[in-house]
């Protein structure tokens, strides 16, 4: 059963992409196929999660029947399964939003014929990266999703998108090359790229070699996860894309990087002392990110900065390193994927209703669009970490795990985390006050010490340049599908709160699989991993 389900996670979106490409002239059929494909993947992933969780051992598939380490393995443990389920749900929600936006715009902003195939390839790459049991296969998954993201980011090819796309593409290319170079060095040192075998072989290397390999790999992943100081590219490139694309990038792409960092830290480089550097980097990511968010007038840019900032919490969780901390990190990743995506979709709606995304121009939205206001309010409280929402629960879990650590630096980081949380709330509540609470007639000539230092996007207001470049009636329309998709995702974040107990337990069980390498290694090599293999002996001799 698992033998067929695991490869289907990648195959279904790929076949879907091929079919939608052929059906380029039939938008309705394309939509049908993409929705079906993503629904099927969601169902398959949910079944897999149930199986993997009940048996407690990861599902391992040897692709092509070749045994590891000679062939490629796909490994789905609880962490991978959770990530696949959540990202499939998010992809489905955003797809519905994009379809709704396409109807509302009569397909002006999103040329549908390439959107669907690219979107499905992005999904395939994402799932492949999550279930890869082989470092090189993970690289291929990364490249698939990055290539698709290049196309989605420059969709339509307007000037601002090309400019933002160039930054994004060049930065991603450099990080991919670093990743590939790291794989080459790891292969040179160990003679394998199968992660389960690497886990054993890397431990036999001298510690200094381990550290070099680890640093090379981590820098590559940190660029993708937008960890400070490698995060500068993110707020410049994400906001220019169409709203659904930004939402999916913000929710998922950085989290693949975080997922890869978790795997590197827990599975491959278990012995390397990473706690102090990761703590410092995580703390700086939180603080610098949120200080950037405070200076933004554009809501999309503001949210991009909070995205960078909250990556810091996940790095903090990884750095603490205990099982409890890993569980809290996994819960926090799930929470953040859902809430960040939902908030970006709501901003897409704000852009429609208010004609701008800059809080200096918005106003009176509470009256104009009360439902959107409620959605934003819930999302903002959730992201800001107000009890009883999942953002609060995730942060409390992280701080609780941190408080058990003997390292004094952890307490400094807990302080930084609390400050970041409050500043996030401040930034989002300012948006609430300006865009929703303030009456429309006050917008002109409004003065407040709170907005004096606000900055618009690098080229004026980004929002007015892209979404509403041709401010016709079609651009301000919303369709029920868009509101439905945003509501659905926001409802999912509330489910995280309501079912926090069982979900937190699931995250803890996933952490039990992840926090030591043994369960992973044993599942790939049931008879012990130390099979004498002489792959690299031709070179050694």
């Amino acid at each position, binding site marked *: 059963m698992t033998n067929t389900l695991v490869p289907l996670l990648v195959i279904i979106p790929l076949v879907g992409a091929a079919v939608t490409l052929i059906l380029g002239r039939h938008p309705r059929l394309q939509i049908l196929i993409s929705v079906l494909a993503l629904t099927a993947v969601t169902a398959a992933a949910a079944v897999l999660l149930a199986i993997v969780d009940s048996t407690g051992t990861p599902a391992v598939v040897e692709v092509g029947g070749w045994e590891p380490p000679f062939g490629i393995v796909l490994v789905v443990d609880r962490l991978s399964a959770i990530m696949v389920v959540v990202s499939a749900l998010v992809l489905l929600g955003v797809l519905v939003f994009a379809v709704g936006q396409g109807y509302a715009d009569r397909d002006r902003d999103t040329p549908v014929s390439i959107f669907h195939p690219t979107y499905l390839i992005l999904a395939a790459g994402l799932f492949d990266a999550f279930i890869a049991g082989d470092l090189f296969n993970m690289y291929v998954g990364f490249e698939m999703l990055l290539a698709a993201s290049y196309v989605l980011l420059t969709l339509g090819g307007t000037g601002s998108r*090309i400019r933002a796309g160039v930054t994004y593409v060049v930065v991603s290319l450099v990080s991919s090359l670093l990743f590939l170079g790291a794989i080459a060095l790891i292969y040179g040192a160990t003679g394998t790229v199968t992660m389960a075998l690497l886990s054993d072989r890397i431990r036999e290397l001298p510690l200094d070699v381990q550290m070099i390999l680890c640093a090379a790999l981590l820098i590559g992943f940190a660029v993708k996860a937008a960890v400070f100081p490698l995060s500068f590219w993110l707020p410049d490139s994400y906001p220019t894309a169409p709203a659904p694309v930004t939402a999916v990038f913000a929710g998922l792409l950085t989290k693949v990087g975080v997922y890869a960092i978790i795997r590197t830290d827990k599975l491959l480089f278990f012995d390397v002392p990473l706690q102090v550097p990761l703590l410092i980097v995580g703390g700086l990511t939180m603080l610098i990110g949120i200080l950037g968010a405070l200076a933004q007038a554009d809501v999309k840019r503001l949210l991009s900065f909070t995205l960078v900032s909250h990556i810091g919490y996940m790095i903090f969780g990884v750095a603490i390193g205990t099982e409890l901390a890993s569980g809290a990190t996994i819960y926090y990743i799930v929470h953040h994927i859902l809430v960040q995506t939902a908030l970006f979709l709501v901003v897409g709606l704000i852009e429609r209703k208010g004609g701008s995304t800059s809080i200096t121009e918005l106003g009176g939205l509470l009256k104009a669009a009360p439902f959107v206001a409620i959605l934003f309010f819930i999302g903002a409280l959730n992201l800001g970490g107000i009890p009883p929402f999942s953002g609060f629960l995730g942060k409390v879990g992280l701080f609780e795990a941190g408080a058990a650590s003997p390292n004094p630096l952890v307490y400094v980081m807990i302080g930084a985390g609390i400050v970041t949380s409050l500043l996030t709330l401040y930034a989002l509540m300012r948006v609430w006050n300006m865009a929703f609470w303030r009456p429309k007639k006050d917008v002109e000539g409004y003065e407040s010490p709170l907005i004096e230092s606000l900055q618009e996007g690098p080229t004026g207001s980004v929002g007015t340049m892209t979404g509403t470049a041709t401010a016709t009636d079609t651009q301000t329309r919303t369709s029920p599908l868009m509101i439905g998709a945003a509501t659905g995702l926001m409802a999912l974040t509330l489910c995280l709160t309501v079912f926090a107990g069982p979900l937190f337990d699931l995250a803890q069980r996933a952490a039990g699989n992840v926090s030591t390498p043994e369960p992973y290694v044993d599942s790939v090599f049931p008879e012990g991993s130390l099979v004498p293999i002489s792959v690299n002996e031709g070179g050694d001799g």
Partner: protein
Amino acid sequence: MSASITLVVLMAVMYGAGVYVMLEKSLTRILIGFLLVGNATNLLIFIMSGRAGDSPIVDGSSADTVDPIPQVLMLTAIVINFGVTAFILALIYRSWWLSNLGDEGDDVAADEDEDEAMEIDQAGVFHASLEDDDAAVRTILDEGSDLGDDDTAFASAGEEPSEGDRDVMR
């Protein structure tokens, strides 16, 4: 592990040159830098296979076969680099287009939209062939000479560049 010193030196030179060119501002140079660094990384993978030996599948029995895995990894990386290069070339073309058109460029974004493409055609922003381009240049210059009807010297001066333009185009 033993590796060929020639390959190592070549790789180092390619990395150095590639990174240097990548730091330039022009997108075309960044592409050249990316190609150099990408191929240097491919070489790095190749170097990891160690000493050259017999081909592994044909001479399976031989004791000193070469390690095939790096070659497989390299092949995949080459394909990926190829695809990305094609995309960057498209990006370069598009940004050249936009920089030549300035703000007008944003208006021709919706390539899919046939109505809009028609409008652009009528506006004479781009043409199907060089002949059309020539014709458009001639019309513009003729209009220019109409304005200066009473000044024949101005009209002939306007006429000359059009000949020159056509020569350049061919």
